[in-house]
């Protein structure tokens, strides 16, 4: 056991921790917004809107995240047209590729969760709101959406932990997140497990505090419904 090396490199783990937490929050909030929009389209009556989104979520949920990130990071650079486009300065950065990959992947899962919750809002409530004279935009904004979001808190909590697991993929494309810090120590000092155990402890601490916050949200927003 060489834990003194871990303490000597605490700065590395702190930086990694910041990267993981920043990635987690950016990815989760951006994909939450995108997913609400896509879920509305996904439950629309027009099949021209519904089917492409269904295809997108199916592909994203049916293939490994690691491959999706590799396709963005290694794959896109193959094409001359992309290398000369204005997006290349961003797409050649590892941190942008991992954020993009995680957002695309997580949006697909969130879309399915929110779409399911939207579908389960009782018809009687919608009709009641309409009979009060609310426009369909207002019915959605003030009645359907809040109710669906409250009902999906437990699923969102699971999804948040899942995104946290996914952020570890960042270390495979050279971003130094929590796991990246552990792998760095593993590579430079041949520490077999100390770095990974430290990483695991840090991840568990994030997961436990996230679970705690989501339970508080549930108490505040979900329990009054029943």
């Amino acid at each position, binding site marked *: 056991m060489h834990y003194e090396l871990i303490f000597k490199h605490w700065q590395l783990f702190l930086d990694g921790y910041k990267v993981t937490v920043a990635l987690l929050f950016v990815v989760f909030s951006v994909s939450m917004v995108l997913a609400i929009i896509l879920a509305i389209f996904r439950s629309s009556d027009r099949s021209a809107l519904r089917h492409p989104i269904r295809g997108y979520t199916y592909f994203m949920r*049916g293939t*490994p995240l690691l*491959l999706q990130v590799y396709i963005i990071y290694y794959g896109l650079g193959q094409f001359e047209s992309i290398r000369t486009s204005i997006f290349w300065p961003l797409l050649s950065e590892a941190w942008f590729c991992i954020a993009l990959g995680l957002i695309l992947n997580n949006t697909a899962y969130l879309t399915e969760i929110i779409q399911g919750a939207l579908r389960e809002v009782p018809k009687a409530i919608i009709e009641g709101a309409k009979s009060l004279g609310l426009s369909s935009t207002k019915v959605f904004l003030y009645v359907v959406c809040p109710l669906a979001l409250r009902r999906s808190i437990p699923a969102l909590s699971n999804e948040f932990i899942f995104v946290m697991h996914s952020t570890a993929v960042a270390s495979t494309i050279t971003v130094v997140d929590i796991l990246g810090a552990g792998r760095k120590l593993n590579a430079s000092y041949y520490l077999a*497990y100390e770095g990974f155990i430290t990483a695991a402890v840090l991840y568990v601490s994030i997961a*436990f505090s996230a679970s705690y916050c989501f339970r508080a949200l549930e108490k505040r927003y979900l329990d009054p419904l029943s």
Partner: protein
Amino acid sequence: MNDAWPYVPYVLAGAKLTIILSVASLILSCIFGFFSAAARFSNVYILQRVSQVYVSVIRGIPELVLMLLVFFGGQMLLNDLGELTGLWDYVDVDALSSAIFSIGFIFGAYMSEAFRGAYLTIPRGQLDAAKSLGLRPIAYLWLIVWPQFFIHVLPALRNNWLVILKTTAFASIVGVHDLVWRAKGAASATHNPFYFLVLAALVYLFFTILSERFFSYIQGRMKRGWISI
């Protein structure tokens, strides 16, 4: 692109290892899940606690972290233990078995919850009814618990199987020569990364579709003759 074609069968051959890895991990996860769920239902307090801690801690650790920990740390731990107890000599842990062990261990925690949930749906009154009919415990488990348990555990089994299938992609990082590892190899050899990585992704998609069909069929069959599930 023409000189890239010979690599296509090479990449596709990696599917064999992906499937072996997934199936072995699924079986191992069921074993871990069974023991963990059994511990949770036991009357021994310490066993219940161990099972609870196992489930909640595993949920908090990313798959990749545990796989690297087992791959790099597992061999050292085994050899240290062997030296300490004198029970075995130097062992070499290969990438495949360490990947199977870690994926099985991770999903054992999820299986444990699934098994527990499915078992809890069976009303207690059935045990009393079985006893009053004079059924032995083994007959009760096999004839009454098992058919109901299986039908309730199927949706979770399907979910876990689909997640396990995709998690095996991480095995390429510890050096298992699976689909992803071969696709990456072919990508750098031919300078056609996009096509080979998409090819590998399509193979995963194919397996996902196939598995969903299979599970829908089984679920449809199992529901035959049931009034309500």
